[in-house]
C-alpha cells in the first residue's frame, strides 16, 4: 500500500509530456500570463456544463443567448450530457465559426493569448469510470504553470498545467473556439479553417461567406475557399459576386472542372449564355468524377438559344 502511494506521489509530481514540451520550447510570441477577465460566467445546473460552456464563449463573442436557450440544441437527456459534435454544430447555428484546435496545450494557450476563450473537454476521473466535463479556458500563468478555467459552478478554477493536461488528455485533447466568422483563429491551419467554413455553410451562407473571405486573405488562391465563397454568394443569390469568385478559381486553378462548371452555371443565370457555353465546355473537357454533372450543365446551356 505504501509502495502504491509512493508511486502515485511520484506520478503526481511528474510533468506531463506537453507541459515538458512547453517548458523546453514555447513560442516566443506566447505571453507569460493571460487572464480574459471579461469572459462571462454561467454556473452550470445539473448535468448542463455543455450549454453553460457554450454560452460562455458565444456571449463573449457577442451572441445574445443563455445556457437555458442552448439546452434544446446541445443537451441529450439520455446521456446526461452534450456530444462534442453538437457543441460545434450549435456554435455554427449561431453563425459562429466553430474551429477544433490541434491537440496541443500550446495551441490552447495561444488562443487564450489572442483573446479567444477555449472550450475544452476533460475527463475529470478515470478512463474506466469517466466523468466528462466541458470547461472554458480563460487564461494561464506560465511562471506558476497554472491554467484558469470557467468550470462548473466555479468562476475561476485554477489548475496546474500537469493536472489539466492529464484530465484533458483523457478527453482526447479536444478543444474548440467559436469565433465571429470574419475572425481567423490564432492557430488556424489552411485546410482545417476552410473545412470549418464549409461546415458553417450548411447553416449560414452569410457566415460562411465571411469565413471564406478571412481564409482568402490569409491563403489567397485556396481552391476550396474560392469555390466556397462562390457557393455562399450563389446561395445568397448574389450572382455577380459568385461569378467573380468562380472566375478567380478558374484563373488560379485552370484544371478545376468544378470551378468551370459553377462559373458556367452562374454566367448562364446571369444571361451571359455564350461565355457560359465556353466555360461549360472547359469543364466537360477536363472531366473528373463529376463529369456527368458538367455534361448536364453543358446540355442545359447548349439547349438554350
Amino acid at each position, binding site marked *: 500500500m505504501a509502495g502504491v502511494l509512493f508511486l502515485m506521489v511520484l506520478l503526481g*509530481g511528474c510533468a506531463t509530456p506537453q507541459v515538458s514540451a512547453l517548458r523546453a520550447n514555447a513560442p516566443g510570441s506566447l505571453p507569460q500570463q493571460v487572464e480574459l477577465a471579461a469572459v462571462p460566467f454561467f454556473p452550470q445546473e445539473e448535468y448542463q*456544463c455543455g450549454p453553460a460552456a457554450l454560452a460562455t464563449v458565444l456571449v463573449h463573442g457577442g451572441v445574445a443567448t443563455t445556457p437555458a436557450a442552448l439546452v434544446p440544441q446541445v443537451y441529450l437527456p439520455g446521456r446526461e*450530457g452534450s456530444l462534442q*459534435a453538437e457543441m460545434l454544430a450549435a456554435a455554427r447555428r449561431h453563425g459562429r465559426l466553430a474551429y477544433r484546435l490541434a491537440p496541443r496545450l500550446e495551441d490552447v494557450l495561444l488562443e487564450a493569448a489572442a483573446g479567444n476563450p477555449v472550450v475544452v473537454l476533460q475527463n475529470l476521473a478515470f478512463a474506466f469510470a*469517466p466523468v466528462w466535463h466541458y470547461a472554458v479556458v480563460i487564461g494561464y500563468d506560465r511562471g506558476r504553470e497554472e491554467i484558469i478555467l470557467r468550470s462548473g459552478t466555479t468562476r475561476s478554477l485554477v489548475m496546474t498545467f500537469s*493536472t489539466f493536461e492529464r484530465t484533458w488528455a483523457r478527453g482526447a485533447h479536444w478543444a474548440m473556439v467559436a469565433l465571429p466568422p470574419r475572425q481567423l483563429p490564432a492557430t488556424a491551419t489552411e485546410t482545417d479553417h476552410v473545412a470549418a467554413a464549409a461546415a458553417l455553410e450548411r447553416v449560414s451562407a452569410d457566415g460562411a461567406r465571411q469565413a471564406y473571405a478571412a481564409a482568402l486573405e490569409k491563403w489567397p488562391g485556396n481552391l476550396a475557399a474560392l469555390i466556397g465563397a462562390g457557393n455562399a454568394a*450563389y446561395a445568397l443569390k448574389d450572382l455577380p459576386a459568385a461569378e467573380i469568385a468562380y472566375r478567380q478559381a478558374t484563373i488560379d486553378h485552370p484544371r478545376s472542372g468544378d470551378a468551370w462548371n459553377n462559373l458556367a452555371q452562374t454566367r448562364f443565370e446571369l444571361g451571359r449564355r455564350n461565355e457560359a457555353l465556353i466555360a461549360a465546355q472547359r469543364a466537360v473537357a477536363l472531366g473528373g468524377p463529376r463529369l456527368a454533372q458538367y455534361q*448536364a450543365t453543358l446540355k442545359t446551356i447548349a439547349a438554350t438559344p
Partner: protein
Amino acid sequence: MHAFNRAVARLLILCTIGLGIPLPASAGIVTTDQIHASAERDRVKDFMAREDVRAQMQSFGADADAVRERVDALTDQEISELAGRIDQMPAGGGIVGVLFAVFIILLVTDILGLTKVFPFTRSVR
C-alpha cells in the same frame, strides 16, 4: 395474402425512404458538400446514417421537433462519426452525481494531481 401484404409494405417503405434522399443535382452548381466529400459518396448510406443519428438522439430524449435541426447542423463527417455510436461517445455533463465511495478515492487522486473532480482540492506538486 399475408405475404402479399408484407411485400407491399416493404415496397412502400423503400419508396418512402427514396422520397427523402436528395438526388445528385442533374445540372447546376457543384456544392461545397460535394467538394469536401472524399469521393462520390454513397448517398443512400449518408442518408441512412443521418436517419440513424436522428432516431438515436430521439431515443436519448432529444425533443422530436428540435432533433431535425440538430441533425441538419452536423456535417457528413460528424454524422459518420456519431452513427451507431451515440451511446459510447463522450457526453460532457459534469461533476454532479459521483457516488460517495468514489468520492473518497477521487479526493485522494485529486490531491495527488491525477484527477480534478472537485474544485476545492489543491494538488501537491
